């Protein structure tokens, strides 16, 4: 930037006038172009910095689980782990099915029939997350001898949520029924693939 006019103060450097006469100086153009390119680049860099906190490939690879349900007797439940959270798999007794079906949907906070919460032809196999929809505690009732609440399903001891035999919320602070994850039975109905 050789300034040979003899005056050295920067603000006295002759302003570059543009050749086209449309009022945009070459320097303004370069300035805006450079700052925009840097800005876009800077924002692009944020993407990996944010994305790295999302579940990594090994976590995503663990996000389906297979469970053999053939040995579960009516009235019995087992716990499995799905995405690091408890999964309840319960084979309902006929009495429990009848009890669930007897409730009018209008009485429910989160209206859903047992049919809607199970697979066709497998109405007795109730598969839900073992995660209370209030604040995430594990409800009691899956293991032998645990309290099952006033409605005979699951009972969350943290703040007293009662779930019925179809694991629907009936009483207490939880807003919705225990979540039914995506799952599928294999051809002979002995193994479910969850996730």
């Amino acid at each position, binding site marked *: 930037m*050789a*300034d*040979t006019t*003899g*005056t*050295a*103060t*920067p603000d006295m450097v002759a302003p570059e006038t543009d050749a086209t006469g449309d009022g945009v100086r070459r320097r303004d153009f370069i300035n805006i172009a*450079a700052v925009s390119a*840097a800005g876009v680049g800077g924002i692009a860099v944020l993407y*990996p*910095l944010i*994305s*790295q*906190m*999302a579940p*990594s*490939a*090994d*976590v995503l690879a663990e996000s389906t689980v297979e469970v053999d349900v053939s040995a579960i007797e009516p009235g019995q439940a087992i716990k499995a782990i799905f995405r690091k959270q408890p999964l309840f798999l319960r084979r309902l007794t006929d009495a429990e099915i009848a009890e669930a079906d007897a409730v009018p949907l209008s009485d429910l906070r989160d209206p859903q029939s047992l049919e809607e919460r199970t697979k066709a032809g497998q109405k007795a196999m109730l598969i839900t997350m073992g995660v209370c929809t209030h604040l995430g505690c594990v409800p009691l009732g899956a293991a032998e001898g645990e309290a099952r609440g006033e409605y005979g399903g699951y009972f969350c001891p943290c703040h007293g949520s009662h779930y019925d035999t179809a694991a629907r919320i009936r009483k207490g602070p939880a807003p919705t029924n225990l979540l039914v994850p995506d799952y599928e039975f294999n051809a002979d109905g002995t193994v479910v693939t969850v996730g």
Partner: protein
Amino acid sequence: MSFPWANHYEPQNPLMKWVDEKLPLPRLVYNAVGAGYPVPRNLNYMYNFGVLAGFCLVLQIVTGVILAMHYAPNALVAFGSTEHIMRNVNWGWMLRYMHANGASFFFLVLYLHIFRGFYYGSYKAPREMIWLLGVVIFLLCMATAFMGYVLPWGQMSFWGAKVITGLFGAIPLVGEPLQIWLLGGYAPDNAALNRFFSLHFLLPFVIAGVVILHIWALHIPGSTNPTGVEVKKESDTVPFHPYYTAKDGFGLGVFLILYCLFVFFMPNALGHPDNYIEANPLSTPALIVPEWYFYPFYAILRAFTFDFILTAQLWGVLAMFSAILMWFFLPWLDRSPVRSASYRPLYRIFFWVLMVDMAALFYLGGAHAEEPYIMFSQLATAYYFLHFLVIVPIVSSIERPKPLPYSITEAVLGKDDDAQLGATVAAKA
């Protein structure tokens, strides 16, 4: 402090006025790296490396904090968690390559920044404190880089840790207990790995603190410049912003192109394949060398092969540490009142000889410890010490410098109307 003609911060926006009254942080930035900081108008591209070093520090802290979110500092899983970062974590491969190559580029920038200081006499009065703090930063960076290199827990990590802590073991009497204390065991293991991780996380923030002192000290006399003539008046300076933000921005762009070339196209070019083998205390790799940025000092360490009063091992360790510690004394070893090598014909020659010598040490530090490399290391090491301890003091007393320009303005424009006194200034020098 700043020059009396510095622009004053005068916020127009009512919100900025309000903030300025309560917390004058924008004012601080304005006066530190904004239009309120007058800088010599003649800085060349060698003066970009300070800002680039700051950028590298931020880059290393950002990528490092992210890597620490995924890394596990336990000898059982450290190597596996590093591979987990490379294979599983979203963009983990990129972040780790950015961090590893970021260290190399950080040192590249630091070396150029230091050599710039050698050439333009940046260490001379009144800037001794800036220089001393700079050497402290360099030492902290070396410690941080070394401990970071141990974390992946590969073969080079393990044996690097063993060899470097072995340096302390060479100290007479206290050496061995000291080494065991440093490692928390007889060889690098979980205890060493954990403390290295803790310190590797801490030290960058200590570096950032010393960097603030370094910049603070810099802002008292202001920057040197290629003439070495102090700023005398307003026409010698331009405001940092926009003149040097633009110039540093351009330098940053060039730097990033080079850096990305490594990160994306040859990310392992500066590393050692052996570090992709998990640490094995029972087998030493054929060639143990540190990362390239430690080569000159590693060459000096290995140059001592014979006992002379003290053991060869101890000489090597002492020489290696003094090779850097000597820089602390440079402001007093070089007595020449002329700063810039541009006006010191004799010193300039020896500066370039030192650069050749450094290049040789860089090469020899990575070579096998066998002849003829050992002999060359010895010669290069001898010259290195000769330069600082003998050549620099003698040159500064016998040299006849070239006449200095009266002012930066004169150097840039070829004339300065205030320059009637210029003749006497040149004669004094």
